[in-house]
């Protein structure tokens, strides 16, 4: 039976079966010895193992806590057309001396780096552990991050190599016949957007894979499947600033405070903070589920003692019903009584006073609230005298918002790349009869107030 020279894509199944049979037959005819056959079937078994890992990844996707972030290949051939190998240019921000001075000492931006080469890699290639020249018995082995580096340049990723890759790589040809070389990427990880394709689409947020993204959408899914909890809200907020959460019983054993990078060392792991972050845990402290490690994120539900850091509160119209935001700074504000109507002077801006008064009149009476607030603190209700000053944030937290409004404050400079998007999902983590205010320390992210960008997904499963 003649063997077709080529099996075309789209061929019918009988042809595939026929060829499969013939191939099996030829395997035995071509490799009669047990050793040879063993070698080939061993190689085939490796292929099967790769497939079985993919099946595992698929089945793991059934659980929102276990899906893989990246698709991993033990060995992946990087076929590089020779024409695409180029010398590596100096990129802006690299650790060279810039300028136009002595070309021996200084490197000019745009100039090529002596002895450095780079090759394009697929955009979906996230990273790899190492690069080698062969799968079996490699003679060269280079560690990514130490000797080789990935670069992202706009939408193109590059692998920078400190020598000419043609010196070590095996030659081959591309599918269209052009000369090329093969480098083998060991433990190559591809971003096939498995997380986004699986439960990311459930929450209406499709982003490239990242640890923060994974943590954030897991928090949302957890609240779907198990119901809303403060833990899930904490997990989502922490993901926005690239922080993990403490586990129950985790103990802090060391704090690294005197280095450029802050770190918390526990009996289970080391957690790094970003520049400007300060740990909020102490050495020897046994942590609770969902504790934050750094001060880049804070959360309060208004219970006494949990909002001491809240030096400003911005109440938007969607909560107050007022015509504009009501901004209240911490501190004691004078209380004035005019013709039996209590007024709290808290701003020099008369419009702001009016807005606040409108809200108070629309809701519960301010006088009522102040009296009740004071009755817990001062015996003012009994004496019928109002104190000259009142702490408005304490009043709001204890009385008006009554734990149906929680507030978080995030350090804007600590936000992860996905942070702004993840914060849109807070609405999906909390019960709809509660609400949450997100405030930023520092400039709020670009587009945060854009009405279109602010509108999170509404129907998550349909």
């Amino acid at each position, binding site marked *: 039976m003649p063997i077709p020279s080529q*099996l*075309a*894509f*789209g061929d019918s*199944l009988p042809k*595939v079966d026929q*060829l499969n049979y013939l*191939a099996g037959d030829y*395997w035995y005819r071509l490799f009669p*010895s047990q*050793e040879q056959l063993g*070698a*080939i079937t061993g*190689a085939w078994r*490796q*292929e099967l193992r790769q*497939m079985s890992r*993919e*099946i595992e990844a*698929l*089945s793991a996707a*059934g659980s*929102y806590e276990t899906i893989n972030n990246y698709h991993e290949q033990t060995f992946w*051939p990087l*076929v590089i057309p020779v024409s695409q190998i180029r010398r590596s240019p100096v990129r802006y921000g690299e650790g060279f001396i810039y300028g136009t001075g002595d070309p021996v000492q200084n490197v000019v931006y745009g100039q090529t780096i002596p002895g450095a080469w780079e090759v394009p890699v697929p955009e979906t290639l996230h990273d790899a552990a190492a690069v080698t020249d*062969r*799968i*079996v018995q490699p003679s060269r082995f280079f560690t990514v991050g130490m000797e080789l580096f990935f670069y992202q340049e706009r939408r193109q990723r590059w692998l920078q190599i400190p020598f000419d890759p043609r010196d070590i790589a095996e030659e081959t040809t591309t*599918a269209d016949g052009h000369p090329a070389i*093969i480098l*083998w990427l060991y433990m190559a990880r591809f971003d096939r957007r*498995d997380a986004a*394709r*699986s439960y990311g689409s*459930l929450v209406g947020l499709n982003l490239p894979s990242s640890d923060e993204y994974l943590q954030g959408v897991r928090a949302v899914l957890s609240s*779907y*499947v198990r*119901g809303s909890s403060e833990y899930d809200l904490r997990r989502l907020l922490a993901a926005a600033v690239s922080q993990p959460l403490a586990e129950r019983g985790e103990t802090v054993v060391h704090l690294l405070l005197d280095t450029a990078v802050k770190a918390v060392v526990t009996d289970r792991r080391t957690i790094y903070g970003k520049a400007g972050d300060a740990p909020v845990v102490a050495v020897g402290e046994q942590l609770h589920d969902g504790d934050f490690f750094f001060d880049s994120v804070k959360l309060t539900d208004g219970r006494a003692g949990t909002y001491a850091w809240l030096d400003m509160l911005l109440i938007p119209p*969607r909560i107050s*019903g007022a015509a504009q935001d009501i901004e209240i700074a911490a501190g004691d504000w004078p209380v004035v009584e005019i013709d039996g109507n209590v007024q709290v002077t808290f701003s020099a801006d008369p419009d702001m006073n009016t807005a606040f008064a409108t*809200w108070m009149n*629309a*809701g519960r009476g301010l006088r009522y609230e102040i009296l009740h607030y004071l009755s817990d603190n001062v015996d003012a209700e009994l004496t019928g005298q109002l104190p000259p000053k009142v702490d408005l944030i304490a009043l709001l937290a204890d009385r008006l*918002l009554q734990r149906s409004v929680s507030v978080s404050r995030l350090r804007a400079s600590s936000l992860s790349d996905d942070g702004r998007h993840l914060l849109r999902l807070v*609405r*999906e*983590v*909390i*019960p*709809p*009869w*509660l*609400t949450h*205010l997100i405030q930023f320390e520092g400039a709020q992210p670009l587009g945060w107030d854009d009405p279109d960008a602010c*509108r999170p997904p*509404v*129907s*998550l*499963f*349909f």
Partner: protein
Amino acid sequence: MPIDLQNLDGLGETAVQARLLRLTELVDGLGVGSSVKRGFIRDHVLRLHAILGEAYSQRLDIVGRSLNPLIASSGEVDTDIVGLTAATYGLSRQDASFAAGTIRIEVSDDQSVIIPSGTVLAATDNRSYRTSQSFIGRTLAAEIQTNTDRQLVRNADGNYEFLIEATATLAGLSGNLVAGTELQLTSINIRSLVRITVATEFTGGRLEETDSQLISRIRGQLPAKTLSTRASIAATLSQVSILPGLLAVSSIGYGDEEMVRSRRRGADGRGVDVYLRTQPLAETTQFLLKAEVTEVRSDGHLVWSVAIGRDVAPGFYRVLSVRAAELGDFTDLVVTRGRDTSPIEGELSPLITDNVDAVFSRYQTATVTGVTASREYIVGNTVNVNVTLSYMPGVQTAQQTVNSRRYRFVGGDTLVRAAIPTYVSVGIDIHAKPSAALPDPQPIKDAVAAMFNESGFAGRLHGSRVASTIHRFLPAGADVGSLSFVLETLLPNGEIKRVRTKDHIDVPNLPNIAVSSRTSIFLCDPAAISIAAYAETLPELI
């Protein structure tokens, strides 16, 4: 076996090459004694295995996706396996259904008329409807013997009329037809026939549920069935035992701009408003109600008033017609909506303090006034009227669910409303070379309507999406020329907001009256889509 390979379509050249290289490298490195990097072994043995390996890997992907509702929507799936997966969640694929409605036959003589079973009636746009039973229009009530016998009734025009039931000949939305449309008999003749019209809108036409629609329903079953989060509210209501065909849900809560109802009570309002869509299009039903004369105008016209209680088509959208057999259609219809929040046994009703908050909910009531020309009635007289209402079914069932002790949270204040409707009419110009075949317009209309009706709470759709939907049906040489859209949003305050647009389609953003992309849906009837095709002779460019 679901793992079996069906064909080698869609294999990626790059992926196959990567497998081939890896296999070649492994075999070569393991030392088989002869080079396998090129030649016969590579081309005919290893390459074949690389192709099969990739094909099996892809097939496993499809099978895995079909078994796993979390990832099922991310690519190709196997229809049979998706059906089996749905079964494990207690769901089954919804069959195609045929639109059903009633047809009015008007004749000039008071003589018996026979409409045989299988009679076909066609609209001008080639949509056709068929009777599944024989009907006889009889002159005397005493002659009526079976449930398909009808009595001829003299109408306001002096003709005689009777109603028959029919269904669309084709399944799907395209069978839906608005009331008043004229039909023609194609298979029989009736002596003294005056006209045939659609009496009650043909509705309920639906294509077989697609894989993606079924997967959406499966995914809807994943969250906890509680009123804990917005997603779990959707899951609760979409349960098989409650609203199995639920298409879209949006929950508005404390702190949302659209939560107007709770803010009326001040900053402490913590209610939840749930907006839902249970069908692609609103359903139309005729209800027998009483109309009372409230005024006799100086010109002799009568002003009638019809009270619509909260249990009549709960949360209805529009009053399409009011008709009394002896008076004909009422004109100048004005709808004034109110509310009835009186206690309901076993339910904890939400707090509603303003009529506008009850609109499109099961607590909505209405008074409809209309005018007729008869002089035979005085103030206080009543007649029976057929009131045709369009509504989103399931509002009452959903409200009962969230009100019930089994689901509500303590002190729960949850109101269910039909999603605020934005009706979309579309004008499509198709430009084609003279030699190009003209496409069949009906599939285009169905696809465009489905795109709008399945968009959930999209808020905004762009013309390019409509154009790409149409393009799938166009033959070579034909292109979408221009698109025009007319949007009509029924606002809760009784106003109608009309917008004409060409490039993008937005629902109004009026959160202060609870209208926004979170609360409003697009409703597009295929009948509201018109297609014009133009032949264009363009110079050939070299």
